């Protein structure tokens, strides 16, 4: 049972990550949140057709309005009238408001809202089953698998095209694939994925899966190709750990998975080998050390053979010359001695052959 929940979570995460990476790079990361608001009128209209919550119409309505949302915002963005984030921000409020208006006018006494019709709960996904080839499997599992195959197929076939059209729409056009076709395809993929995954795992998780793994991956790599795979890895890891966390705490699964993803993001933010905050700090220190070492070597290599080396190459002179604190200088000198770059004799430093080479290298750069 838990195994099935984890598998569904993983499939949903993979399905969402694929459009998510491109949405993030196209500055439309929040579109899934906007979709979750925008499908309300579709649900209401779907309900009104038969005045019943027991028909598939509300979900069909949701898909239709998801498409209306993405197509409208993409068209606005393309028209250059507004920026992409503004395009999203001006489309979802009227759609949601239309939904509220319809509910209030026509269905005020029905427990009708997005939660009731569409927003699924991952915890219950294994309970809703169907028979496939003689095996009883959760419906959500089948649905998410189909979406993963659909999205995966598109990305395998069109990875190069999507990449070019995302980073350089003009080049894309000149190479003969229309960026506008590709972007509408991406938007179609997004709306199908969003509505399908809303039904299986709920809106919060869809939003989190679409943005956070991709954004975390962006902190860890500069290559789009690698980014996709890191996102997959993060999505899978957070799905497994999130479900385990939720089971341990007996808490909501969506919340737990999002929180774990948040944890990964924070880790990457501080510790990313590429550009994390701590890494940056450490690196700054390293540079400082390296720099200090190189100027000391430079100094020694220039003065070591001179007649006044007793004074020039003494500890106290170095301290004076470079105005480093005693502790810091000791540390640097210690490192240099360990690396075999200098030797110490009677409080006077001698540069070794290796140290001389090193110094030359630094200077000639």
């Amino acid at each position, binding site marked *: 049972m838990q195994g099935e929940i984890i598998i569904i979570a993983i499939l949903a995460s993979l399905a969402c990550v694929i459009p998510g990476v491109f949405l993030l790079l196209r500055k439309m990361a929040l579109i899934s949140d906007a979709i979750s608001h925008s499908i309300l009128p579709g649900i209401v209209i779907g*309900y009104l057709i038969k005045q019943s919550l027991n028909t598939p119409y509300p979900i069909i309505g949701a898909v239709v309005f998801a498409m209306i949302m993405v197509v409208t915002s993409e068209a606005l963005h393309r028209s250059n009238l507004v920026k992409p984030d503004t395009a999203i921000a001006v489309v979802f409020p009227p759609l949601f408001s239309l939904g509220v208006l319809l509910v209030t006018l026509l269905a005020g006494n029905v*427990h009708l809202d997005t939660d009731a019709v569409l927003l699924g709960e991952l*915890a219950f996904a294994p*309970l809703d089953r169907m028979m496939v080839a003689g095996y009883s499997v959760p419906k959500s599992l089948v649905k998410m698998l189909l979406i993963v195959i659909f999205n995966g197929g598109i990305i395998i076939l069109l990875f190069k095209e999507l990449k070019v059209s995302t980073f350089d729409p003009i080049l894309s056009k000149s190479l003969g694939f229309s960026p506008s076709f590709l972007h509408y395809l991406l938007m179609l993929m997004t709306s199908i994925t969003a509505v399908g995954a809303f039904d299986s795992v709920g809106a919060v998780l869809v939003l989190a899966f679409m943005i956070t793994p991709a954004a975390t991956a962006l902190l860890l790599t500069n290559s789009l190709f690698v980014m996709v795979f890191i996102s997959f890895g993060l999505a899978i890891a957070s799905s497994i*750990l999130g479900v*385990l966390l939720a089971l341990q705490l007996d808490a909501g699964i969506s919340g737990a998975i999002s929180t774990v993803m948040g944890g990964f993001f924070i880790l990457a933010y501080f510790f990313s080998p590429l550009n994390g905050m701590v890494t940056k700090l450490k690196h700054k220190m390293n540079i400082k050390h390296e720099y200090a070492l190189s100027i000391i070597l430079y100094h020694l290599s220039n003065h070591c053979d001179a007649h006044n080396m007793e004074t020039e190459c003494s500890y106290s002179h170095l301290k004076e010359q470079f105005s480093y604190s005693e502790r810091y200088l000791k540390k640097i000198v210690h490192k240099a001695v360990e690396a075999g770059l200098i030797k110490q004799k009677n409080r006077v430093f001698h540069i070794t052959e290796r140290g001389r080479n090193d110094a030359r290298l630094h200077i000639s750069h």
Partner: protein
Amino acid sequence: MSSMQSKTYFIVAIIIISLVLVGCQKQEKGDATDDKPYSVVTTIGMLGDIATNLASDYVKVTTLMGPGVDPHLYKASANDVKLLHNADLILYGGLHLEGKMSDVLDSLSSTRRAIAASEAIPEQYLIGHPGSYDPHVWFDVSLWLYAVEAVYEGLIDLLPEHTEDITTNYQAYVAQLEQLHAYVQETANTLNKEQRVLITAHDAFEYFGKAYDFEVRGLQGTSTVSEAGTRDVQQLSQYIVDHKIKAIFIESSVPRKTIQSLQEATRAKGFDVQIGGELFSDAMGDAGTKEGTYVGMVEHNINIIVSALAL
């Protein structure tokens, strides 16, 4: 070199976090060691109340939605599915009371014992359209008896060897509810016709109004997304003034502001309407208190309503 180091740090950090997450094991609840052989899982407290009254000697009753939880917006916990999976009998409201969860439970009912208690009520008594009936049936005690009967049958089915005891408990509970129904009616009858207007923030009290002859008015619909209009506030406040209604009521799950705006609008028209008190609508009160039982909750509501609306 420093790049390798950072990478190692990163991986180590991930492993540590993972261990912390997995390791923060919560103490396993004592549930497993319970000696009662059967487990009954209910969604809302009112159903739990029935099961407890009828068969608490033989079954362990677990209610998913505690006090103060709107069944419609319930957010499942990870272990709920385990509870449901291991349950010998599942009791739920149905009529889409539990939102999407009702659908899941509907599909479960074909393979295991799962009863949508409210759906046992004959359709002619339900308010609304087929496929979207108002699920707040427990406010009419006489209708709730159908749900009690459905639960009773389910329990008998599950525990045929205890039929006798359960039947005795059932009859006692039914008697208690019939008494409650009479009490509500009696108390309501102390108000005259004009005083019987129940105004709340949202329309959850339709069944109550129909059963006990109250005119029920709400500022906004049942749906959580429905919103009040300016005109609705104006008209309802005018109605209060015109009919000199003494009090209006807040519900524990709806922001007070909604009712406050109505009160202020009425006061601006020169009529001082009181806020009568807090009614329980979607869930019962805290366990261990009187309002934590179905009977206590219904009594609380009618007492508050009548004392506030009376002269």
